[in-house]
């Protein structure tokens, strides 16, 4: 009688754990990274890194042309004076940044 109860308890615990694991595995974790663009501290655009795209970022200071291609993001053209954003090259991993100070533009890869 007592053994049965313990067995039932173990089954219950195992059942709850298994259910929790299934729920955990089913929650979407947003596989791909996102390219987030902010201008003057405000979010301007948010694009998936795994989809090729082209975005002209228009700010008070001017424009920066962002290209996402083959899982990499880069600024290929800008009318800022120093061209630091263009010279930064392509970014692809989480936390990497392209910054254009004159235009107050930040392009960041987030998970």
């Amino acid at each position, binding site marked *: 009688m007592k053994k049965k109860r313990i067995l039932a*308890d173990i089954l*219950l*615990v195992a059942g*709850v*754990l298994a259910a*929790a*694991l299934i729920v*955990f595995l089913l929650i979407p974790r947003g596989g791909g990274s996102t390219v987030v663009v*902010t201008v*003057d*501290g405000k979010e301007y655009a948010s694009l998936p890194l795994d989809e090729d795209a082209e975005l002209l970022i228009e700010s008070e200071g001017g424009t920066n042309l962002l290209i996402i291609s083959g899982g990499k993001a880069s600024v290929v053209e800008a009318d800022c004076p120093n061209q630091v954003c263009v010279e930064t090259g392509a970014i692809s991993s989480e*936390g990497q*940044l392209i*910054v*254009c*100070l004159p235009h*107050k*533009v*930040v392009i*960041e890869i987030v998970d």
Partner: protein
Amino acid sequence: MRKLSLALASLLLAALLLGGCAPKRYGTTEVTAVFDTVVTITGYERSRARFEEISGRIKSELGEYHKLFDIYNEYDGIANLRTVNLAAGGEPVEVDARIIELLEFAKEACALTGGRVNIAMGSVLALWHEARENTLVPPSEEALAEAAKHTNIDDMIIDGNTVRLADPDMSLDVGAIAKGFAVEAVCAKLEAEGVTGWLVSVGGNVRTLGARGDGKPWQIAVSELSGTEYENVRIPLEGLSAVTSGADQRYFEYEGRRYNHIIDPETLFPSERYVSVTVVTRDSGLADALSTGLFNMPLEEGRALVASLEGTEALWYLPDGSVAVSDGLGGLLG
């Protein structure tokens, strides 16, 4: 009843196993008018809401410091350093306590570095600022020598909560110390409240609060060192600050020569002693002031100064491609 509590207990266990309770890493990076540079904030917190609350506070407080220390813009209802400069030669100006603290610190920094960081150099720095931003032609030696007659920091007279510039032709430029000072003030306040596991970077002025959320030190790379033997070096920071002054970030070119933004008070021309100087110490304001001070100082003098300051280390990148490090830094580098 027993079954229910057992089920709840195992749910809790599941939550602990799968979700964990360690703080998560959150971050934000933006360029705004605040000190006209990149502000990066990273923090390990238990919820995004708490991260947003603290990072929001950091940004808004930095914004206040920026307005107070701004010499180019006026703001409604604020007496800032522009107000002080415009009143040069006239009556004392009543200012916020945070301005008085900055100016007192500036006097100390000037004395500590033998005048290599001098906020009373505004008249000279304004000529170079104009050259960098507009004319792209360096100022004449005559104009610089004339401006240099009005750079005595002792003519900045602090009395209670007022400040007066006794020389009508002088002006203050706090560009070499303001960011670091503001970052230190904001972070020290949070630290006193027990906030830990954070990193705040304002235009390369890095201040850490404790270690990272996983208990390991923050790792700082100095991008100015790429191409040297120290390219892949990481400086571990745990509650420390690191500031780099570099010649390759802001400059203009004229007749094939490069003019950077760090002006040597002795020559009145851009300092060409180093490519960059990095300072590691606890206080971000001191790190900021010292990085400029060391940039304007011969290596041996800089080494002696760093050795005399407890808990302070430095790294000098020289134009010939070599890198010099202070005695205590060698052991720290990873």
